[in-house]
């Protein structure tokens, strides 16, 4: 099975995960500092910054892009409850 390494920069921890895993599933279990609100891509609370491996996360949907815009997301910010891991990446809370 394809795997990806997700590094949470704030807690200096890397997790090996199966490809397709949503960031939210990993970050909560490992105790990283990304926080969550609605968990369904609507509120923008779980916005995180992708430090490396932007292309190793699933493409943001039109709806996610809209929520990111409304919440004044910076370049390379994503919603952790929507982004799925497809390769190695490094993330941190915004």
């Amino acid at each position, binding site marked *: 099975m394809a795997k990806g390494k997700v590094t949470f920069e704030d807690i200096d921890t890397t*997790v090996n995960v199966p490809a397709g*895993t949503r960031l939210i599933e990993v970050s909560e*279990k490992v105790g990283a500092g990304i*926080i*969550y609100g609605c968990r369904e891509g609507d509120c923008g609370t779980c916005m995180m910054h992708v430090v490396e491996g932007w292309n190793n996360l699933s493409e943001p949907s039109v709806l996610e892009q809209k929520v990111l815009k409304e919440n004044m997301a910076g370049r390379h910010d994503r919603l952790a409850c929507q982004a799925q891991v497809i390769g190695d990446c490094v993330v941190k809370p915004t």
Partner: protein
Amino acid sequence: MAEPPAALNSGHAIEFAPGVHWIGALDPTLRTFDIILKTANGTSYNAYLIRGSEGVAIVDTVKASFSEDFFARLESVASYDEVKVIVLNHLEPDHSGALPELMRRAPNAKLYISTRATSMLKALLKPDGERFDYTTVGTGDTVSLGDRTLRFLHTPFLHWPDTQCTYLEEQGVLFSGDVFGCHYCDARLFNDKVGDFRFSFDYYYAHIMRPFKQWVLEALAIIEPLKLNMIAPTHGPILRDRPRRYVAHYRELSSSSLAGRISDDERSLIIFYMSSYGNTARMAEAIATGAEQVEGVRVSLYDLEGGEVEPFVDLIEEADALLFGSPTINGDAVKPVWDLLSSLAVLNLVGKLGGAFGSYGWSGEAVRMIEDRMRGLKMRVPLKGVRVKLIPSDEELAVCDTFGREFALELTGQRAGGKVVDMADLA
């Protein structure tokens, strides 16, 4: 109470600065606002009308059931076709209730809301299936009424993501939304005329603004440089006498009271516990001993049995990390723990470190339940909590000591990092 001005009874607008009118509504019989707030003499829904040489602006509306008062006051000083600008500083229903009808009546008006208000506007208009055009604005954007200019200030999270303030430049009037507001109903309208509303002002801050202190400070940074002749909030008295006093009070209420009592490079860790037979208490003491070995951590240890909820809430607000110890009784953490953990909605706990521990008889669910609650409160739970079956042995107390030390190292950023784990190994 003195008789209200005649204009209030007759549904007239009240002009309180040249061309600036109060067109709100009074709700003196309300005793509970939004489930959470007591209102000992009701509240007011303040809305404002500004007349410029090239049109009229309305800033905020009222709760839907008070629309009649609002429209009567509006009509007493302007006609609907004169209304060019409608500003909503905050979309909560007590301020947006009359908006759909106002938009219908004022066909020439353009609606201005903050960037973050769009999804809320759509959700509020959902029942009627209506859509209105709107313009989103942020700090620095202005709208001209000819000889009057409205300048927008982006002040999010006071107390919703959408909130903003609007500043009438030529007259130094700040339409502040819920900021500087209070639930206080007094027909005399102005802070130099109404009764003693200090309690209502502080109570409102404590329940509405307190969770957003950091955002309050950011807002104050852009409000304080303004020339302020008056502050016109959406609830309670219009602050025309020494308005800066209220700005200074907000700064005081939003500043840390712990700062200066412990040094800037120290982190505060509070350990709360309850214990039936002394077992969880012994664990708490061992964890405290372990944490104290780490330099830069100030540990406080409290038995929940010996305190009230309110002062503990105040302590939690300024703590950097919290540990809760609870025995498990009938598959649950004990009530005093939940009482405290359910009283924290007035605080911002985001990013504080949390953890749990406890002794149990046979199943020991309490620790995991407390950890889940802390995650739900947006705290970070970096370590799996310690559970001990009944009486802790010396070895188990040593585990508690290590847990305390590791937790304190995490708190001070000294815990060994660079860890690599497999998803399947995470609990």
